């Protein structure tokens, strides 16, 4: 190996490494872009806001033959129980506004004693969350919890309508 080649070898290694890093970076970025296909819905900053998505449904299968006609009134999701671990700052619970509705819903997840764990902005029909961020975590135990659904008109004032409460047991396990 001549002197010139010897001198150029470190420079070549650096260049090759740099090229490799750039190629790797581009590949990673492409993967990242491809993975972010589910866009969050537009949401107003109000209280603690979670990942609200369009195309939400309550996940409850319908045993009817599908021929049922649209009914008046507002659909409200209900649950018997939810689980989380002590220290968790989020709760897996389908909270949202069924797509068949024609009004908005404001969902407040709270304990029976009034402790508010999460309050959503106005959810339009078809908007909701599958995992909600919590204002605070809870200690191990069993809690009487509820989602308070305030029905509102989809006008500028969000004129209030009747409301509904879906009560459930919240079990907090040791983290």
């Amino acid at each position, binding site marked *: *190996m001549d002197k010139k080649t010897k001198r150029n*070898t470190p420079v*070549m*290694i650096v260049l*090759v*490494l740099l*090229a*490799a*890093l750039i*190629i*790797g*970076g581009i*590949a*990673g*970025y492409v*993967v*990242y872009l491809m*993975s*972010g296909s*589910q866009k969050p819905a537009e949401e107003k900053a109000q209280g603690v806001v979670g*990942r609200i998505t369009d195309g939400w449904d*309550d*996940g*409850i*299968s*319908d*045993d*009817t033959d599908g021929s049922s006609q649209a*009914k*008046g*009134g*507002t*659909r*409200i*999701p*209900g*649950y*018997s*129980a*939810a*689980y989380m671990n002590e220290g968790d700052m*989020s709760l*897996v619970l*389908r909270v949202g506004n*069924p797509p068949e509705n024609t*009004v908005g819903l404001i969902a407040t997840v709270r304990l029976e004693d009034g402790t508010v764990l999460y309050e959503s902005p106005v959810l339009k029909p078809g908007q909701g969350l*599958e*995992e909600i961020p919590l204002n605070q975590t809870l200690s191990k135990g069993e809690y009487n919890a509820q989602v308070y659904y305030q*029905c509102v008109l989809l006008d500028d004032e969000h004129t*209030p*309508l*009747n*409301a*509904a*409460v*879906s*009560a*459930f047991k919240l079990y907090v396990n040791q983290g």
Partner: protein
Amino acid sequence: MKTKKLITLALSVAMISAAFVTVSAATLTEEQQDGKTEVTARINGGVPDGITYEIIIPDVIDFGDLTQPDSNTDSYKIVDYSVTLEKVNGLDENTQQISVYVKDQNATPDGNQDFKIANKENSAITFKYDVYDTLVSEQDLPTFHSLNYNTMTKTKGFYLTGFTFEGQELKGTLAINQSQLYGRDILDIAGDYSGYMVFYSTVEDIT
């Protein structure tokens, strides 16, 4: 030989680098995926009595125009409503039910329990109405007791019904006695009125 080593080194670095960024990207995604995986895990494995359901409630009930009667006698205006268990999964209909309670938004067991509508301009002007858990015609009203004839002992409200199967519907009636308007200065009480009902649902054992 040297060139071969360099190419091998370059390929290795490119692969490691790509893998690292992919994992980083996957970590971002994986937190979401994780959540979804946890949903499945928790729903399937962590909720032994995971009952989910959907009820339909009336978002608005409109009495329409109220009329001041000429004499202090009963003069009812009625309007029907319904509550439906639209969907339900996981309910043992032999031992469990979806119980529905109803109350005025301001009602408490220790305080005023009336269902009321209030003047939108002056909330101090209120009129009471009654809620029935069955369809009642105007002439039959005196022979039925409304839900609020009883005392509300629970913060949930007055017990309205218990659903056990999909599609089950409760039809009921609201009634306002316009005799409350009798003798009032119409200029004072004229205007729009509104009141809000709260429907409370929960899974309970059938007793």
